[in-house]
Each structure stands twice: as C-alpha cells, then as structure tokens.
C-alpha cells in the first residue's frame, strides 16, 4: 500500500517484526517502518479486539500501540527505529509484566 519515494536516499537498517527481519531507514519512526514493510501489521484493540493501523502519526490517536523491545503499549509513531530493534504487533491488552 505504501511505497518509499525514489528520492529517499537514507541509509537502511534492520529491525525485527515478530521475529522476521524487516528493512527500515534511518530516521523512520517504528510506525512508518511498519507501514512501509508491506506486512500485515494490524494490531488488535484492548477491549473489542478490532484491527487497527497507525493513523495520526503524531502522538495523538494511540492507534499505533506496539510492543518495542519487550515494553508494551509504546506509541510506535513517536519512537525512532534503531538497528536490531525487536517489534511485536500487539494483540489486545498489554501484559502487566512487560
């Protein structure tokens, strides 16, 4: 659905999404990298389990919630990617211990 611009010459780096290697670019937010990955990155909401994707991309809507390096409910649109980052698509509520 999303395609990177040909003008984008930023260096690439690798992150992991549910254990699978995904290529991102330096300066991407986690949400941008997920949307650009071409994978099904829909999370499930905490109460009804409805499928959602990042929406506002500016920290307001909380529809980008994702588990990053073992910490749940992070706002993916506010976190820049880092090489080797472990991302898990969050299905439902955060687990209390992570």
């Amino acid at each position, binding site marked *: 659905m999303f395609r990177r611009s040909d003008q984008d010459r930023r260096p690439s780096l690798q992150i992991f999404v549910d254990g699978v290697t995904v290529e991102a670019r330096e300066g991407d937010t986690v949400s941008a990298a997920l949307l650009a990955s071409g994978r099904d990155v829909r999370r499930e909401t905490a109460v009804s389990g409805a499928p959602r994707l990042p929406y506002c991309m500016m920290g307001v809507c909380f529809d980008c919630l994702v588990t990053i390096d073992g910490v749940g409910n992070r706002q993916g649109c506010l976190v820049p990617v880092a090489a080797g980052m472990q991302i898990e698509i969050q299905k439902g509520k955060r*687990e*209390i211990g992570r």
Partner: protein
Amino acid sequence: MHRDYDVAVVGGGLLGSAIAWGLGRLGKSVAVLDEGDIAKRASRANFALVWVQSKGLGMPAYTGWTVRASQAWPSLAAELKDQTGLDVCLQQNGGFHLTLGEDEYEQRTQLVTRMHNQVGAADYRMEMLKASEVKRMLPLIGPEVSGGSFCPFDGHVNSLRTFRAFHTGFKAFGVDYFPERPVSAITKSGGEFSLTTPQGEIRAHKIVLAAGNANQTLAPMVGLFAPMGPTRGQIVVTERTMPFLPHPLTTIRQTDEGTVMIGDSKEDELDDRALKHSISAVMADRAQRMFPHLARLNVVRSWTGIRVMPQDGFPIYDQSETHPGAYVACCHSGVTLASNHAFEIARMVTAGALEPELVGAFSARRFGGEGAANNSGY
C-alpha cells in the same frame, strides 16, 4: 412538565438514580431533578466496589444492611441486563484488604477481631490470611505484603455502566429525567409538594432527597435533618492490561476492560478541581509495593471528587414527621447499596413508610439534633 408526579427524586447521581429506577419499576410516575454537568458530583469519586468487609463497626445494623445489598446485587444486575441489554459486569468472588508490613497486619487483625466480636463470625466470614495464603489467590503480590483480610461476599461492578443502565431503564419505565434543575425551595400544600427550580416548578405527591452532600441544605426545608461531613477522594487509573488481579482490593481493582484503578484516599479538603500529587504519589507507591508489576504501567488518568459522608459515616434514611411524604436518603457507599435503594427503599417509599426493622437504625434522630462525633463507619 406541568403534570403531577407520584414522586420527585432530587438528585440524579447513583443513589437518586437507583431509587428513581426502583420507583419506576413499581409503576410510579417519577421525575428526577438533577443538576448540570458542572455539579460537584459525588458519584464521580466512586470506586465501584460492592463491599462488605469492615462495614458496620459501631453500628451492627449497617452490617446487616450491607450484606443484604451484596446478596441482592445479582438480582439487580440481572434485571438491568434483561431490561437494557447492558452487562454491568458484577463480580462477587471475594475481596481483599492487603497490609504492608507487620504493624498494618496487627492493626487489621485487631479490626477483624472487633468486627467478629460485634456481629458474630457466622454472618460476616471476614478472615485474616497470611502472606503465603494471599499469594495462592493473588500470585503477583510483592515481598512487602504481610497478609490481609479476605471476605467472600466482597466484589465489584462496572459502575459507569450501572449508571448508564439506570438511565436507559428510566426511558423504559417512563421516568422523566430533568438536568439543570437545582432545587432552591420546597413547599407543601394540599397534600402536594412543589419544588422550585430555575426552569420552573415541579409538583409531586412524594419527594425523595437524594442530593448527596446538598441534602444538608435541602433536608431542613421539609423538616428533615442530614448532617454531612464530606471527604475528598482521589483516583489514579492506568492503561489497560491483561487480567492479573482476580479479586478486588479496598485500594486497587482491575476493571472488566483491563484498566487498573487505584483509590481510597481520604482528605478533609473540599476543592475538587485540582489533584494533590503528594497523595497520588503515596497511593501509587503503595499499589506498586503490593504488586511490583504495576510499576511498569502508564497512568492515563487521575481525578478527584467530593464523596458523600454522613457525619458518623453511616447511611441516613428518614421520612419527615412535619412533612409526611418527604424522604431523605444519603450514604457513602452508593454503589454497594444500589440494590437496596432500587428494591427496598423504592418499595418503602411506595408503601409510604420506612420499615423500622430494616432501616430504623439509620434515622437521623440518632444525631440527637446536635450531630455525633465523627467515628466514620466506613
């Protein structure tokens, strides 16, 4: 607006709504006169517990009244579900009051002993459990937890949905709800009450004052007495998390939708506009000492509200001697007692007399007109 009602209920919070719903259920024509959105609503400081343990020290009748409410809650929840389709998520599998350190454990043990000596263990079944026993039921407690009291009658409910269910029920019963109607005067003539509001007069054969702390000023208009000593409470709420807390606590509970509520602060302060962060900090600190995993959760909301508190902590139910047909009802535990208000108080108001064997102990005559010492029965 100009019709005469069987009953006007003054106050549209949880207590007024429960009584009005109960009256509508019995086929009465009912008007609920409420204030607007900026009213100092006591209901908003509720903690949603349906709670029995430790209630009634100093007044055994309050224990009985509370146990009755707890036992009637499943019927209330079922009737609301049938009528409105709303599930209020009542959970009554027992609740804890946890203690941190040996001193708190000793103090709680003494309280449990005093309660047993007063009402008898048989009808109360509150018991102290050691930390190792608590851990079997609440596996995630931290090392500072010394134990706690457990009562199998305790539980909790989704109080917001309960409130919504009552109001949805109003429509089905034909109960008229009028917001923005603070009552400034009440008169009685020709066997009928007239209530003055900024948007006109409401007339009714009977009235029930259920206006929380405002009962203190409304009650004397019809020869009643409701001495109050309101307190402020703060609540802290976390983001939603997977279920980890199978039983509610006096100070922490996890809602059916996953948020964790931390509450039970009590201050004399009566300004409900700003939080005191020093108090939220103590609440949050105690919560994470009880459940260390909580430290990782984000707090998403916190607020404060003024809670209803009759002067001695126990409920007040009275019918006026000078103005028969005028009733007053106030209590601290509007969630726990909602079933009694919907079923018992509504029935008694309909019948025209409060029943001494059930609620005689709660007459404001116990204050002797002067107001007793504040020994809080909560």
